[in-house]
């Protein structure tokens, strides 16, 4: 009886430790790290492997530390109350130690097997997410995810630096694309989870500014995003394959946000459309980055 129980406990611990890293979110972060590597050049398998491992551990470490810092509000929100700390499966200190340990390992891996700039950028993303977003902005301003969006925009810089050893205008555009993609993506979710955020005391834009103003800003951020995705074509980073993909993908996103706005203006429910926009925005970013990599190799 003892052996199977211990095995179950170990597998449950492993599951919880993996859950702390938020693997589903990291899959998109990894895509936005790896695709730019193919835009920047032709990376070797070892650079891809070490950047992927280091990127996963760094983002996972940031997510674990974030769960430690948000342990006082995670039990309030339906979407976070099953996390390992609020559900009592892991001690808060264990989570903090785990997060710091894997982020430290990531820094060493990236610095040793890739290059120092890559390690510094990844660590910069970690600090920005933990200290600037989680500790400072998240609970103090409705613009939390606007500036905080920079944390999620570090991965393309990491991938680019891993291949070229530098950061240039093209890589900054990849950063800006994710930065300006974050508000329409996150506010679609915030519109749907207003009660959760309100109960937890997180001042998300729909709770503070109201739905109409948030939806208006989602619209303008989407238009800005489409303009930004086009600009790298004008200085030769991407060609026609990418341009068509960016316009089609952006057009679909804009149509969704416009639909939310139209329904809101008519006083009708936009909830199913907001869900679709939220889910599509994830697909949008993934396909846009795939289009970037494909464009450079066709």
């Amino acid at each position, binding site marked *: 009886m003892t052996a199977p129980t211990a095995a179950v406990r170990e597998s449950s611990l492993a599951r919880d430790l993996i859950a702390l890293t938020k693997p589903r979110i990291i899959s998109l972060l990894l895509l936005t790290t790896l695709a730019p590597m193919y835009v920047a050049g032709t990376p070797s398998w070892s650079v891809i492997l070490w950047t992927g491992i280091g990127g996963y551990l760094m983002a996972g470490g940031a997510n674990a530390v974030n769960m430690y810092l948000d342990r006082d509000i995670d039990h309030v929100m339906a979407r976070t109350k099953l996390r390992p700390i609020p559900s009592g499966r892991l001690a808060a200190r264990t989570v903090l130690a785990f997060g710091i340990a894997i982020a430290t390992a990531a820094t060493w891996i990236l610095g040793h097997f890739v290059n120092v700039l890559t390690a510094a950028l990844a660590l910069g993303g970690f600090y920005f997410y933990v200290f600037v977003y989680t500790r400072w*902005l998240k609970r103090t*301003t*409705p*613009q939390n995810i*606007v*500036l905080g969006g920079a944390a999620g925009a570090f991965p393309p810089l990491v991938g680019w630096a891993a291949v070229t050893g530098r950061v240039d*205008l093209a890589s*900054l*555009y990849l950063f*800006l694309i994710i*930065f300006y993609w974050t508000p329409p993506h996150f506010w679609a979710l915030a519109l749907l989870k207003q009660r959760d955020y309100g109960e937890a005391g997180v001042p998300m*834009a729909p709770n*503070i*500014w*109201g739905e109409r*103003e948030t939806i*208006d*800003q989602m619209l*303008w*951020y989407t*238009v*800005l995003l*489409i*303009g*930004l995705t*086009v*600009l790298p*074509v*004008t*200085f*030769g980073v991407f*060609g*026609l394959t990418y*341009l068509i993909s960016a316009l089609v993908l952006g057009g679909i996103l804009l149509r969704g946000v416009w639909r939310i706005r139209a329904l809101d203006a008519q006083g009708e429910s936009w909830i199913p459309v907001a869900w679709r926009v939220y889910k599509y925005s994830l697909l949008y970013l993934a396909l846009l980055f795939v289009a970037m990599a494909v464009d450079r190799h066709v």
Partner: protein
Amino acid sequence: MAPALPALFWLAIVLVVASQVMILRSTVRAMRAAESAQARRGIEWAYAIVPAVALVVALAATWQESTAHRTRLDLEARANQTVAP
């Protein structure tokens, strides 16, 4: 695609700048409606203006890079014409 690049550049710039202006306008409107304290408004305004300033810097660098790219394409086209019999 080279002849279309200047038009594409200016069209994108207009979209980006106009949207950024609308975002700032909307943020000011939202701050007033939220009736936040004066000091809080100053911080919120700073949060809104920082990305806008960074965007202007990026657009200026893009203008330089786009101009240089078009010049390179022109030179290549002329060189090809010279080489061609």
